[in-house]
């Protein structure tokens, strides 16, 4: 028996039973489509959150004073004064896993330019801060070491501050604004960064040399926190351990004594948020799994019923010379064709769902190859098995018993 003939026979049989063929494919389409769609929505939401957190900075590691703090890493300043500039110097010199480091002091206040004013916060940082937080310069320059040493009254401003203090078309660089009564010359403007994952406006800030903010505005000698970048995301844990070792030594903490500072990493934040969206993915995956099951049962049913219905046809085919293997191959080819066509439509359907859903929710569209492969294989396996198994039973009958089958 040649396969051209068997394929023709199978295709004709599928055409003859259009309705049944379509129903079978529908089972596959729904199964495959929902798995791809659902998992892509789940993964998209996860990726979207991860992206937003990653956007906040590059492999950030934060050091905050005190040990009393609870809750989220970004929680406000404590009054503890355990961190100093010499800590920063030591970390800068000794830490192997940090690629950038900046002390941080900040204060909120009113920024004024002529008759316009705007409540914002002024952060005292070093020039590394831009790379740590992924800020980029739109115009102007960053402050120099010399300006830091000399407590220069210079600053960089974010887009929100620019919008609220300057008329459209006015170049802020070179202008002077006043913050908490202190005139600061604007030497640069930051590119817009938008909101972070928690809805905070990352463009509503003024950056100034940490020395200037520390001494001229706040008049303090300690620093409020330290921001740093680990050399890479997977070295975040090593970076944390290293910072702890160095700072414990610097702070002369005895063994058994609790840290008087806290170190957190961006990687930890990503993990926390990812675990939430992983749960979402699991939930959607469960729904998809149920659809797959329902689709599979549908395929199973139709295949089973159709072979029973078609036992007479099988008998007739055998009576004119079809061998058992020919019958089996015919049903197998039918099942494979249905699975492949249904599977492809299902994949397109799933991709359609994920395209529509992710663009509505403005998630990145993530195509999960393994979801495609697995759902396709599951549906095909069900389709092929339940196409093959009853056909095998029927093909084992005496031709006359198959023909007489009612």
């Amino acid at each position, binding site marked *: *028996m040649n396969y051209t003939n068997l394929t023709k026979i199978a295709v*004709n049989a599928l055409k003859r039973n259009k309705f049944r063929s379509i129903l079978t494919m529908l089972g596959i389409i729904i199964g495959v489509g929902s798995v791809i769609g659902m998992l892509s929505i789940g993964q998209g939401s996860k990726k979207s959150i991860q992206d937003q957190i990653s956007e906040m900075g590059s492999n950030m590691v934060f050091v905050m004073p005190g040990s009393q703090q609870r809750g989220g890493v970004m929680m406000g300043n404590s009054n503890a004064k355990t961190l100093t500039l010499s800590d920063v110097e030591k970390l800068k010199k000794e830490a192997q896993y940090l690629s950038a480091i900046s002390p941080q002091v900040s204060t909120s206040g009113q920024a004024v330019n002529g008759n316009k004013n705007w409540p914002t916060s002024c952060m005292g940082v070093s020039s590394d801060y831009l790379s740590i937080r992924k800020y980029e310069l739109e115009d102007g320059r960053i402050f120099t070491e010399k300006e830091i040493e000399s407590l220069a009254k210079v600053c960089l401003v974010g887009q929100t501050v620019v919008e609220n203090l300057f008329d459209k078309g006015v170049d802020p660089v070179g202008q002077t604004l006043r913050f908490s009564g202190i005139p600061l010359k604007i030497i640069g403007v930051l590119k817009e960064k938008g909101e972070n994952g928690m809805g905070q406006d990352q463009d509503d800030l003024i950056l100034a040399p940490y020395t200037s903010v520390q001494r001229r505005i706040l008049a303090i000698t300690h620093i409020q926190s330290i921001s740093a970048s680990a050399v890479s995301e997977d070295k975040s844990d090593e970076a944390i351990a290293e910072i702890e070792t160095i700072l414990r030594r610097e702070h002369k903490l005895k063994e058994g004594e609790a840290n008087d500072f806290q170190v957190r990493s961006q990687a930890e934040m990503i993990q926390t948020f990812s675990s939430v969206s992983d749960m979402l993915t699991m939930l959607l995956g469960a729904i998809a799994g149920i659809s797959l099951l329902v689709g599979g049962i549908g395929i199973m049913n139709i295949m089973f019923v159709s072979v029973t219905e078609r036992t007479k046809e099988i008998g007739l085919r*055998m009576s004119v*010379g079809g*061998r058992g293997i020919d019958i089996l191959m015919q049903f197998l080819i039918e099942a494979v064709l249905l699975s492949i066509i249904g599977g492809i439509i299902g994949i397109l359907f799933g991709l359609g769902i994920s395209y529509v859903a992710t663009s509505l929710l403005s998630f990145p569209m993530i195509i999960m190859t393994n979801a495609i492969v697995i759902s396709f294989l599951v549906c095909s396996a069900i389709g092929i098995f339940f196409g093959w198994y009853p056909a095998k039973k029927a093909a084992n009958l005496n031709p006359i018993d198959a023909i007489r089958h009612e």
Partner: protein
Amino acid sequence: MEKTIIQVSELRKDYHIGEVTVHALRKVDMEIREGEFVAIMGASGSGKSTMLNILGCLDKPTGGEYLLDGVPMSKMNKNQLALLRNQKLGFIFQSYNLLPRTTALENVELPLYYNSKVKSKERKERAIHALDLVGLADRMHHMPNQLSGGQQQRVAIARSLVNDPVVILADEATGNLDTRTSYEIMELFQQLNDQGKTIVFVTHEPDIARFMKRNIVFRDGRIQKEVMVTNRHFATELIKNLPVEVDVI
């Protein structure tokens, strides 16, 4: 003497239904030669269909031997039997057994699909030729449900002819048809036999059996008697003499 096509000796067939054993065939001996036109007759339940199914290799006997063209069937496996059905046998059922929603042409082509030596062009030509023989060339693209009972049976006959079998086996082939249509079908069989085809025809109607050359009468799974038909019916003449149907006004 013509060559023996079918030789059956001490053939038995038992059916087991629960505790009960039905002896459908009890030690049947039979011989059919090339060019014969034999009726297997007998009352309902006498074992005619059982016999024909075994001759058609659609069923296996419980005991005895069946030689087709000199080859013992008891030695054949399933695939070899399928090959025989495909190339040496043509079977016609009382209920036509056409594939639904499939054109007459495709129904007739069916046996040739299972013969890989026949290419698609030849397959089509042979099927058209067979349909032509049964007078249905103009209906080849019709579906079974667009054909009358007689026409469907003609398609089935064309299907049994298409592989040029050594013997045609027909089981109550006129059982579902009215008198005139039955005669038309018998005319076709007589023509085929005149052209040299060996035909075994099962019927319980003595009237139909008179179209054959020889009658074998079954009773309770045994051959009761065998007779040569003396005053044979010829379908072409009988059809001429049938009263013309007048439309009721």
